């Protein structure tokens, strides 16, 4: 930023809402500003001055400040619209069925907008791949829309330009390419399922046959596809149908873990689990894995196994069912586990499922399918289909290398990179960047001016998914259409329009392009189009599930156990391949297993830590033939002692939020084994939870299946105070620990719904994170091989609440509906309530966490929730704003609030429906049924605070389980 620019913005700093707008107006005429603009936005400076141009130039803050004009807040000015927008009632949130793409897979959502500002993404309840649930990534994706660091103008070698100059260049290039059949033109995109984008690409390459299209997706299905090609002779997607699997044996596979398929898999798994809870069949899950995962945490019996042992385990299992003859040597522990796995599989013959992680060598995966085939599971519990994310290359890795060589050799004169970041996210990043210099016209189009953007000569800002029309396919293959929730904040282009422009066609709207696609598919646009926009699912002829051809068994290549430590490189559970690295919600979301925030770490087993005398935060160097990476270690109970696990996505080289977080593991990406040497330095890691061992406590209760037989509910402990009769409504919550996987979607959903400020690494380490809802992680038993537990902890809304007793000013009081209220504007901040709270769910605004937020981020805030000021206490309210809305609606409609009329944000987002909320005075309510279960218990009963949030115990030992 030039100083002039800084000065110009400085004038605006800290001016919120409408004042910001006014400020901008005056600013627009200040010479200071014009000079700055001329240097930063020559494109705009050249335009003749209209207020609206400043508006657009300024994008987010401005537009939003303007839109905020109809919101009831204490600002002195009221700014009505000039012309009322249609169907827009200030104070009425509007919902649009749309979709947001994650790694190419569309996540079907309902976008909630308040006076034109998208404030929340909810899962689309009508969509089979969502059922109203989303994952943490989708929740966080909303914040990217408001990221003040989003790219806002086209650039040429870093200098802002206007679109005309870029378009001129593209037009010229297109003309040349038309002449040469597209010779030397290369297109590199991220993975996509968008029919429209694919159609555009087909058209483009029909025009330029000599050109070439590659896909670069940091975390893709290529390994799986390689395996299927080996085993079935063709590239296939394989989806585990966990809802049908009564017995699942997972080898280094994490279907419930983070990723584009997490929601669908969790839905299916929880479906089976719930049926099992009600006595229908079984839901046995055995996992053998090198490092704890969410799936491992749910398993009945978890075997700690190095990646290289998996092959042996699968073979042993295969042998029992006579699939192979190899008899690998197993330790007794392994042997027992395999025995049990065999028993379980046999017990659910035809309904079992053997899952081998796609990181495993092809022949091991093939062996897994062979077992299923033998047991007649294959077509029942797995779904085979054409690749959801089509790719022109069978081996993307090679394709990328080929591209680099071509570029380096000067055989590429135009490279267009669409929504991909190879310079950072690929191992060949540096080589790629170097080769880019040889390309005459290198263009990067993306949401941010990121590493690749800097390496390319030209950069074009893309519109966020919520700003543009698009389409795509959800995890289950159904097509969805993404409609914009808001006009682009900046002078950006939707990806479709951009691709068209690359083809030399300008001014084509994304809307038209998408409509064209579907007119072709449907023959006629209407009525399908409107229906789709309402329901969010594009009607298509049903996809027929492929009948998998017989499994071709592959010769077992001698799998040499690597010397040194086995290295696992996995995508980060909260920022994935780094695409969410600039997103505070994602960064401060505790990692599902380690509870780390704002950093990745070198995960090592306690044994290994002891061997090298390492503690959490000690820095180590991981090196393997020449390349090395240094990072802080995190001691991970339940990890294989010979394995080192690192996560991708960190060590970004751009972005206020992203940059100094964690370390980049790219150099090691294709290494199998490493050596570990402590550097003696330390890095303070910010873990959301300091201690995890709960031996000897009953915080997380585990019962045998047999115990779940109905029993009379036990009476609460005696109390000095007489229980008040329950008037209706009277709110309560029940969380089923047998269903919760600990994915953490609820935490991010709560952030979005309740305007929860992110506080940053330093403050998290100080124990000052603000999450109203936390997911506690516990280990039980031997650190080398512990039982893993998760437990979401919102406010318990105690009936006899200690916190209320402490407050001297009546800021913490009990509502007749049983809510434990926190009245921010009355709070003076004595923090007694928090001292007295046995659950420590209260959060305090130690500093001004909200005032300093960027204007654009402020625009995301939920207008129905107070933004808390410095020095006040806050905590989970059971989403009281939703309760109020439902209460008012019910009053107007003159009927009692129906069960399910109020869903809390955490409940709504949960992919496994582990959370249930409702009126505990309504005998018909689902929450009441859950609380009636013999598994029901309250946390810290001995404190006798009469919590309204209760838990359902885990089912540990299962029916027929030895």
């Amino acid at each position, binding site marked *: 930023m030039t100083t002039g620019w800084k000065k110009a913005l400085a004038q605006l700093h800290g001016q919120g809402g409408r004042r910001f707008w006014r400020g901008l107006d005056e600013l627009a005429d200040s010479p200071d500003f014009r000079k700055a603009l001329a240097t930063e936005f020559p494109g705009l400076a050249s335009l003749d001055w209209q207020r609206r141009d400043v508006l657009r130039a300024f994008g987010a803050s401005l537009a939003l400040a303007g839109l905020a004009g109809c919101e009831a807040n204490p600002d002195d000015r009221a700014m009505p619209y000039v012309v009322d927008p249609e169907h827009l009632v200030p104070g009425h949130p509007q919902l649009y069925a749309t979709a947001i793409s994650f790694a190419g897979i569309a996540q079907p959502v309902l976008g909630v907008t308040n006076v034109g500002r998208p404030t929340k993404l909810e899962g689309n309840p009508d969509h089979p791949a969502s059922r109203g649930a989303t994952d943490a990534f989708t929740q966080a994706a909303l914040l990217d829309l408001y990221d003040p660091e989003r790219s806002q103008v086209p650039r040429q070698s870093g200098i802002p330009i206007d679109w005309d100059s870029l378009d001129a260049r593209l037009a010229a290039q297109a003309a040349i390419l038309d002449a040469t059949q597209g010779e030397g033109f290369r297109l590199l995109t991220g993975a996509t399922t968008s029919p429209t984008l694919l159609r555009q690409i087909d058209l483009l390459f029909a025009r330029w046959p000599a050109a070439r299209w590659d896909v670069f997706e940091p975390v893709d299905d290529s390994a799986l596809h390689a395996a299927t090609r080996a085993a079935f002779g063709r590239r296939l997607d394989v989806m585990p149908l966990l809802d049908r699997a009564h017995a699942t044996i997972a080898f280094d596979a994490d279907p419930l873990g983070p990723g584009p398929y997490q929601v669908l898999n969790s839905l299916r798994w929880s479906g089976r689990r719930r049926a099992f809870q009600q006595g229908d069949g079984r839901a046995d899950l055995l996992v053998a894995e090198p490092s704890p995962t969410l799936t491992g945490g749910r398993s009945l019996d978890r075997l700690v196994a190095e990646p290289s042992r998996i092959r042996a385990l699968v073979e042993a299992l295969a042998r029992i069912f006579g699939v192979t003859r190899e008899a690998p040597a197993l330790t007794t522990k392994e042997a027992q586990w395999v025995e049990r796995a065999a028993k379980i599989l046999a017990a659910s013959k035809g309904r079992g499922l053997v899952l081998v992680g796609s990181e495993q060598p092809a022949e091991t995966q093939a062996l897994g399918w062979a077992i299923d085939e033998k047991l007649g599971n294959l077509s029942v519990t797995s779904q085979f289909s054409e690749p959801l994310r089509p790719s022109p290359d069978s081996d993307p890795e090679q394709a990328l290398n080929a591209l680099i060589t071509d570029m380096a050799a000067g055989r590429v004169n135009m490279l267009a990179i669409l929504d991909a970041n190879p310079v950072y996210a690929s191992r060949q990043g540096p080589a790629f960047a170097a080769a880019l210099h040889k390309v005459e016209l290198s263009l990067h189009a993306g949401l941010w001016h990121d590493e690749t953007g800097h390496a390319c000569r030209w950069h074009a800002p893309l519109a966020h998914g919520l700003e543009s029309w698009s389409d795509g396919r959800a995890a289950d293959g159904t097509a969805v259409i993404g409609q914009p929730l808001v006009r682009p904040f900046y002078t950006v282009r939707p990806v479709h329009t951009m691709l068209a422009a690359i083809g030399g066609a300008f001014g084509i709207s994304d809307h038209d392009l998408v409509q064209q696609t579907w007119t072709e598919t449907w023959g006629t646009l209407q009525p399908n189009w409107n229906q789709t926009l309402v329901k969010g699912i594009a009607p298509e002829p049903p996809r027929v599930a492929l009948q998998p051809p017989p499994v071709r068994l592959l010769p077992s290549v001698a799998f040499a156990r690597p010397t040194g430590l086995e290295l696992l490189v996995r995508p980060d559970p909260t920022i994935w391949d780094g695409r969410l690295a600039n997103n505070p919600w994602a960064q401060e979301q505790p990692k599902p297993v380690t509870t780390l925030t704002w950093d990745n770490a070198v995960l090592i087993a306690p044994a290994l830590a002891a061997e090298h005398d390492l503690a959490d935060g000690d820095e180590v160097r991981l090196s393997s033939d020449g390349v090395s990476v240094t990072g802080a270690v995190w001691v991970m109970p339940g990890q294989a002692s010979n394995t080192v696990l690192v996560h991708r996505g960190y060590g970004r080289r751009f972005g206020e939020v992203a940059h100094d977080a964690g370390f980049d593991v790219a150099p090691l990406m294709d290494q199998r084994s490493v050596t570990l040497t402590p550097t003696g330095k330390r890095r303070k890691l910010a873990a959301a*939870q*300091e*201690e*995890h*061992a*709960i031996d000897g*406590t009953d*915080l997380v209760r585990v019962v045998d299946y047999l115990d779940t037989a109905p029993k009379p509910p036990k009476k609460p402990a005696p109390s000095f105070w007489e229980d008040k009769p329950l008037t209706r409504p009277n709110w309560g919550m029940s969380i089923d620990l047998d269903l919760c996987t600990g994915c953490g979607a609820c935490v991010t959903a709560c952030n979005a719904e309740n305007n929860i400020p992110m506080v940053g690494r330093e*403050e998290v380490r*100080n*124990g*000052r994170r603000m999450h109203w809802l*936390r997911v*506690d*992680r*516990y280990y039980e038993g031997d650190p080398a091989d512990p039982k893993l537990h998760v*437990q979401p*902890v919102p406010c318990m809304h105690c009936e006899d609440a*200690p916190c209320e*007793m*402490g*407050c*001297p*000013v*009546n800021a913490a009081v009990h509502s007749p509906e049983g809510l434990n209220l926190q009245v921010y504007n*009355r*709070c*003076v*901040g*004595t*923090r*007694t309530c*928090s*001292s*007295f709270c*046995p*659950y*420590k769910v*209260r*959060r*305090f*605004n*130690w*500093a*001004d966490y909200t005032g300093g937020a960027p204007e654009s981020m402020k625009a995301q805030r939920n207008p129905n929730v107070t933004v808390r*000021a*410095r*020095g*006040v*206490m806050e905590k989970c309210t059971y989403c009281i704003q939703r309760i109020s809305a439902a209460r008012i609606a019910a009053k107007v409609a003159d009927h009692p609030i129906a069960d399910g009329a109020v869903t809390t944000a955490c409940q709504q987002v949960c992919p496994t429906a582990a959370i249930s909320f409702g009126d505990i005075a309504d005998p018909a309510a689902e929450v009441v049924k859950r609380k009636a279960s013999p598994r029901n218990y309250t*946390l*810290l009963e*001995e*404190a006798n*605070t009469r919590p309204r949030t209760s838990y359902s115990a885990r089912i540990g030992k299962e029916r027929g389980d030895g």
Partner: protein
Amino acid sequence: MAEEEALRQVYDIVGEEIVDLPLAFPARRGWWLCFSGALALLALWFVSVIVLFSNGVAVWGNTIPVNWGMAIINYVWFLGIGHAGTLISALLLISDRNWRNSLNRFAEAMTLCAVVCAGLYPILHLGRPWFFYWIAPYFNSMHVWPQFKSPLTWDFFAVLTYLIVSLFFWYLGILPDLASARDRAKSRGYQVFFGIISLGWRGDASHWARWRQAYAITAAIAVPLVVSVHSEISLLFSAGPIPGWNSTVFPPYFVLGAAFSGFAVVGIIAIAMRAALPLQALVTLRHLDMLGLATLATGMMTAYGYFSEVFDALYAGGQELATLNDRLCGHYAWSYWGAVILNFIPLQLLWWRRYRRSPRILLAVSLSVAVGMWMERFMLVVTSLYRDWLVSSYGHYMPSFWDWSLFAGMGGIFLVPFLLFVRFLPAISASETKDEIHEEATDG
């Protein structure tokens, strides 16, 4: 006639020794040294407070779960110290222990300063200190009142009452001596100064009569007041369901601990003043002896509190036991053992009269007790909170620079007024000393 004249001399000498102190102050240089030090601390206090108010409580080390830290620790500590002043003068007055007369005046002054420090802390530690008055009941446009079931509200009233009553008590006591100072003053300035604050006291017999009544009754109420005040402070903790806090022994335990630390600090001050000013004749070794005994007695009672706490924990088991474990061998064990050792080991010397009568030893013991009691408050607040109920919410606490700077600054708040008192007001009760001498004389 001769012994009459002698007695008269004594009265006069007493007058000189005490009342003339401010008028012809001996240790001027020493005083200025101390005072400028105190002023420096006061400046530090202002800096700390400005930093605190402009950034919020974030500048301190507080966290969730340990969201009470130095502020509350020092609040309890300062208030505890204060109690000794009132106890000495009030308790000993009604039990007619005449050796009090040499100590009560500056002990009470010490009380006032300590209570001011104590009272400031809870306000400073608020998230929104500018709204502290919401704790007081007044007719507001919100129709909202304080929550009278909260220990904090009780504390507010307790500390306020205690401050006001101590002030009255102290002023009643000093009034006749102010008159005396007025009459001895040579310079006009002092005459006017003492003239004004002595309200024209003339030693009128009827005035004396009423004065006696008021003073005695106030003293009689002041004792239960002290007990109630620190009992209420203890409820601030024991009202919460936190292991290590929720205990019925707390009120007496706190009161005794308070007296314990208080006597120690009085001892420190007595010895210091004795060394700095020519008061040996008035603050005699006997007084130190008595102070030593009081410290020893309250100390041993406090020790009993420790034992009963441990017993409770062992008896209750569960979380209580876990907390005990955290205290004895947890991350902050130093605070527990520090408290035990500093409070009770040197204390044992005071069983011997000769140590009680040795200013050096007594000073050393008193200092160690003062520090030890601070550690106890730290232990009470921190070790209970940092690992209370849920494993997941275990945390840690490390006071920040601004925590310490404010604590040091509070030293300024304490010392500046106290030094001014020593410098300009009769630091020992002359009239009562004379009364004492008279009674002894007449008793023969």
